[in-house]
Structures are given as C-alpha cells and as structure tokens.
C-alpha cells in the first residue's frame, strides 16, 4: 500500500530523514515512533506529497509519488498533527469542499458525513464556523474529512492529541474497521500504550534513521514497547 525506499530529506546540512525504508501493507495499522525532531513528521509529509524530498522513492498503491502525485493523493488521506483548517468555513462547508475535491458522489457523501459525524458527536456543530471550534472539534473534523472519501491509505500525525477519551476510542475503532476493509493506516504517536494496543506493525526512528521495525511482537519481544523505545533511545547517550 505504501512503500518508502531510501527516503532522504535534508534541511541545509542537517539530515532530517536518512535513507529510511518502510513497507506498509493493506490491512495493517503501522505505528511510527520516535522522539521530538526524530524525523516522523518530515517522513509523513513527504509521503503525502506536501514536502519535496531529496532522494529515495515513495509509492502509494503502486503509483510513484514523484511521477503520479495525483493518483497517490487520490488514494490517501492525511491528518496533520495540528488541525489547521479553513476557519472561514463552517464544518459542513469544509466537508463538502473535501468531498468536491475528492469527487465523492452526493449520496455517499451525505451518508458518510452522517455516519462519522454521529460517531464522533460532531453532527450538531457542523453548521458552526470552524473558527469557533475547539482544538478537539477541529481534530474530529479533520478525521471525518479523511474518512469521507474512503481512501485506501490514511496517514496520521499524532491523531489522538486533543481528542477526548470517547472520541479517541471511536477513532481507534474507525482505524481498525478501515484496515479490516482492506485499507492501511500509517500514524505517528508518542503514546506508546496506544501504539502497543493498536498497531500491527511498528517502526522506531531516531535522528532520521530507522532503528527498529517489524511486527509488534518482533520489536518488543518480552519487554514492553516503552522499555524497548527507551533502551534504543539511550543506546548512544
């Protein structure tokens, strides 16, 4: 579903991501873990076509992001770490805008908005301007807009930040159902307990380099994910 090969991105002299390779298959929830500044957001943005990268190749559903960016973007949805949305629109305006851009048919769009807005308890607020939304409400709206066009791949950067416990639980369910339908999810998180419970696969990145990856069992072995993470973090400290 998503294949990252030798991805390298530099800012000036600093290598933010250094020859990173990952492979996310259909049906997988793939967690991406690392300390602040490790290169998670850079990797994620590069996968979504938001950030141009220096070396490597990214393919989404078999389409090269460099050569067929539109085909890749049609197949994926992105939820950023900070949901900066168009504050001049109402919630429903924004969802309709995304629906138009992704060419979601009228009837399907209405049904999905109803379903997801009900699940995340945002339906009554959809007529309000986004500028009046709280951080959590914006995050919920970003989640609904991502699921609205039924992408094959959803890429999320810290998706649980700002969500209340109930919404977090609903989102986890939505993620699992999406993967059960044959989709894939690639997301970054600092909450290792969430990653441990939710992810099928996990990758740990440190200073732009991949230091561990594989199934949850392979990566953590007999330890907890937190112990493995801290051990890897402290290796050259």
């Amino acid at each position, binding site marked *: 579903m998503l294949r990252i090969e030798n991805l390298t991105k530099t800012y000036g002299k600093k290598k933010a991501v250094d020859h990173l390779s990952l492979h996310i298959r259909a049906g997988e929830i793939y967690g991406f873990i690392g300390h602040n500044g490790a290169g998670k957001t850079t990797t994620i*943005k590069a996968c979504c076509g938001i950030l*141009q990268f220096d070396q490597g190749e990214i393919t989404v559903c078999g389409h090269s992001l460099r050569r067929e960016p539109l085909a890749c973007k049609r197949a994926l949805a992105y939820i950023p770490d900070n949901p900066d949305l168009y504050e001049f629109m109402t919630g429903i305006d924004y969802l309709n805008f995304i629906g138009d851009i992704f060419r979601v048919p009228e009837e399907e769009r209405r049904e999905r908005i109803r379903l997801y807005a009900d699940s995340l308890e945002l339906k009554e607020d959809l007529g309000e301007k986004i500028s009046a939304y709280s951080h959590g409400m914006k995050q919920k709206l970003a989640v609904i807009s991502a699921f609205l066009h039924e992408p094959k791949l959803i890429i999320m950067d810290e998706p649980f930040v700002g969500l209340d416990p109930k919404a977090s639980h609903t989102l986890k369910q939505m993620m699992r159902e999406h993967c059960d339908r044959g989709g894939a999810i690639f997301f970054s998180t600092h909450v290792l307990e969430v990653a441990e419970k939710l992810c099928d696969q996990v990758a740990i990145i440190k200073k732009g380099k991949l230091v561990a990856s594989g199934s949850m069992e392979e990566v953590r072995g007999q330890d907890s994910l937190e112990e493995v993470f801290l051990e890897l973090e402290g290796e050259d400290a």
Partner: protein
Amino acid sequence: MLKTLLRTYWRSMIHSLFFRDSRKAPGRLKKAGILLLLLYVAGIFLFLSGSMFFSMARPLNRLGLDWLYFLLALAAAFFLMLTGSVFLAITQLYEARDNELLLSLPIPASLILFSRLLLLYLTDLLYGIVAVGPALAAYALRIQVSPSWLIPSLLLYLLLPLPVISVSCLLGAAFAAVGKRIRHKTAAVLLLWLLFLGGYLFLCRRLFAGLPDLLLHAPRIAGWLARMLNPLYQIGSAAAGNLRALGYTALAFGLTFAAAYGILTVTFVKMITSNRGFRKIKYREKRRKRYPVLLALMGKEWKHFSSSPGYMLNAGCGIVFAAAAGIFLLIRQDAVARLAGLSLGGVSLEEEMAGFLLTGLCFLASFNFISAPSISLEGKCLWILKSSPVTARQILAGKLLFHVTVCLPALLLAQGAVLWVLRPSFAMAALLLVLPVLVLTLTGMLGLFWNLLFPRLDFLSETRMIKNSLSSTLTVLLSLLLSLLPMLARQGLGLFADWKPEGYYALWTAAAAAGCGALWRWLKKSGARRLEAL
C-alpha cells in the same frame, strides 16, 4: 519590558516587509528594491500633497491667514491618520493574534496597551508626514523659514496623533464590541466601511471642488471659523506661532488622550478576553450537489473573501468604485457631454472621449488585487491543497478565475454604462468591452505572479498581509501604471497621435492579450513549480 515588546513588533514589521519566509534572509538587492519602492510610493503622495499646499501658501499668507494654512495642513494630516488607524486599531489592539499569548505572560496589561498605542502613534506620524511634511516645506519655500512657526508646527505634528489615537481606539472599540455581538460581522463592517468611504469621498469632492472657492472666500471662511469653531482657530494659530494657543491646544490634545487612555485601561482586558458567544446554529442536513474541482476551489476563495472584511475592503475596493462609476454615469449622463466640451493640452476631449473612458474602465479594472495575497493567505492551511488531488495549475486557475469572476459584474455594469452613454462605433465598443476585461485578467495574473515570487505563509495579521505585503503593493502599482500607460503614451508623449483611437487601442488590446498569454505560460510552468515547492 516595553523595549522588548516594541522590539518584537518592530521585528514582526521588518519580517513581514523583507522576509520571503521564516528561513531565508533577504538579499541586499531585494532590501534595496523594497526601500526604493517605498520611497517611490512616498514620493508620489508627497508630490501630490506638496503641489496642493504650494499653490495655497502665498495667497493665504498675503491675506494674513497663515493660521488657516496650518490648520488645513493639520486637518489633512488628521484625516489621513484617522483613515489609516481606525481599522489598524481594531486589528492591532482588539483582534491581534498575540493578545492571548501576551496576556498569559507576566506583562502588565497596561504595558501591552501602551506598547500597542505607541506603535499606533508611530504609524500615525508616518501617515501625517504625507500632509504636514510637504505643507511645511511649501511654506518654507514660498514664505520664510523661521523657528517661530516651525517649532510650534512640528510640536503640533508630534501631538496630533494623540486625539487621532483617542478617536480611532474608541471607534475601534465600538466596532470590535459590535462585531462580537452580531453574527453577520462581515456585512456590518462592510456597511460601515461603505458609509465611511462615502462620507470621505464626499468630503474630498467638496474640498477639491471648493479649493478655488476657499482661496477666493478665505477671509470670510476664516472669520466664520474663528467665530463659530474657535478651537480650530486656536489650533491653526498655535501652529502659526501663537504660544498661548499652543498651550491650550497641547492641553486639549493631552486631556483627550488621557481620557481615552483611562477608558481603554479599564476596558482593554475585558474587551479582548470577553466572549459573549452566539446562540449555537444547529446543523440541519441539506441536499447539496457535487461541484467540479475548479468550482470547488473558486467556492473556497469566495468563502475566504466574503468572510474577511479586511480582504474585501482592501483588495476588492475596485468593485465598489466600478459599480459606483457605472451608476453615476447612468444617472449623470450629462457629465460626459460636459467633459466632451473641454480641451486638454490643445486636444479636444470630444475626440479622445472614448479613449479617456476606456482608460477609466481599465483603471477601475486594475484597482482590485484579490489574487495578490491569495497564496500567502493559504498560510498554515496550505497542507490541505497540497495533500489533495489537485494540481498546482488548478489551484492557480481557481484563484485567477475567482479574481476575474468576482470583479467582472461591476466592471460590466460600468462598461454597459459607458456604452449606453457614449454610443461608440462598433470597433470602439468592442475595445471598450475587451481591453478592460484583459486588464482585469492581467491584474489577477500579476497578483499571482508577485505572490509566487514573494509568498509569506507565516503572517500574524491577515489584514496587514493583505494591505502591506510586497505582492499586493507591487500588483497595485504595476497594474495601475499599465492601465494608464496607453493614455499617458498617447496624450503625454504623443505616441501614435496620428492614429485613429480604434487602431491605437486595438494595438494595446493585442499587447494586453499577449501579456496575459505570456504570464499564463509562466504561471502554468514556473509558477506551478514554485507553488509546489512552498
């Protein structure tokens, strides 16, 4: 602490003026270019103001009405400062994005207020110099240089922002308070602005139309002012060197400011932290058909434009002027006939009337710069478009089409009025229809061009970004110049003066079409690449 706050504001201003983005420092050439541009703009305003005061200085001095001269200079400065600072007071004082951040820091609220007012004061001084500077220079050149009027005048110039700040902050507070209580804030602000603009234009018209009358009846007007509006007489006398009047004026200005500052100190924190909220709009499901991508992009632009008074009023004011011009022409059809009877530089206006009106239409078409800040305005939301399956070319086309579509109805009204009143030949009618639309399109493309060269995605104030960004300034200046160029070349330089107007303007129409073609080619390739790299 005050120094730190001022330094922060100063850095923010410099940053918004010179820096292309937060990571790249500007080159020397760019800095010099921007400074030259600012000097050029200032030069134009100073020249216009100077020529007016130059013609007034001697007649008023001969009549012994120097105080009236200084009063007019200070009044002009007052209105310039007020026009500039009312909306600035709202955005800088009550709706500044960093208000909450500053309030959360251990900084006294009174200091935040004071630092903001100090910034307004300095901005007002900049606005005021446009009127006071040339007025004092004209007086010095035409009459005399003497400390007896120079020192009091300069002192009054430095004190004048105090009543201006008082009025603009209180008006701004009223606007902001009303804005918080009404749901359709944009419409209310738009209405207020239209009233403000209407009043301002009415005053300007009366002032310019009445300038010869003012000089002719100056003694009578001065006598009336001295009797009926004595405080104004005192202000004028103070600037002319009357020390007692200077004392009264300074005291009055100081007291006005002290009263306003007192009110602001008490209400400032409450104003910026209160949120009365509105009754929640409960969402009701409605049928909505699917729009094509380009229409969806244009719809997004429309929602942004129509939800921001600052955007509409600054970047779209040409729409109002074009509609007003069209309606005026339809009501006062005799105005064209009266103009046709005049001659300019030996050229009968009747022969060139179509050309003049065509230039007027082009001028109106070039008065909007909606597209110029539109890329920067994507700001932190640029990720939405960049992660969506739309090409950079589609995004640019959406912005350009929105610019043209939103400006076109008012322009068509003005064009229709011109055609109705002028009844031109078929060829001229075609030019009157085509060239202004091409100029409108060219302005939209120029806006995108400059914005792609000088994007700013990390702005703090949206209104400041729209009004003061380099892309907006360059677009306005260049497109206004381009719209006037055909007329200037023909009437000023006598280029192709022997050609028929139809042939001459057809040449410019072809040039405008070629310009549009070339710019679109650039936007499609290099422009799209620049947008992708943002």
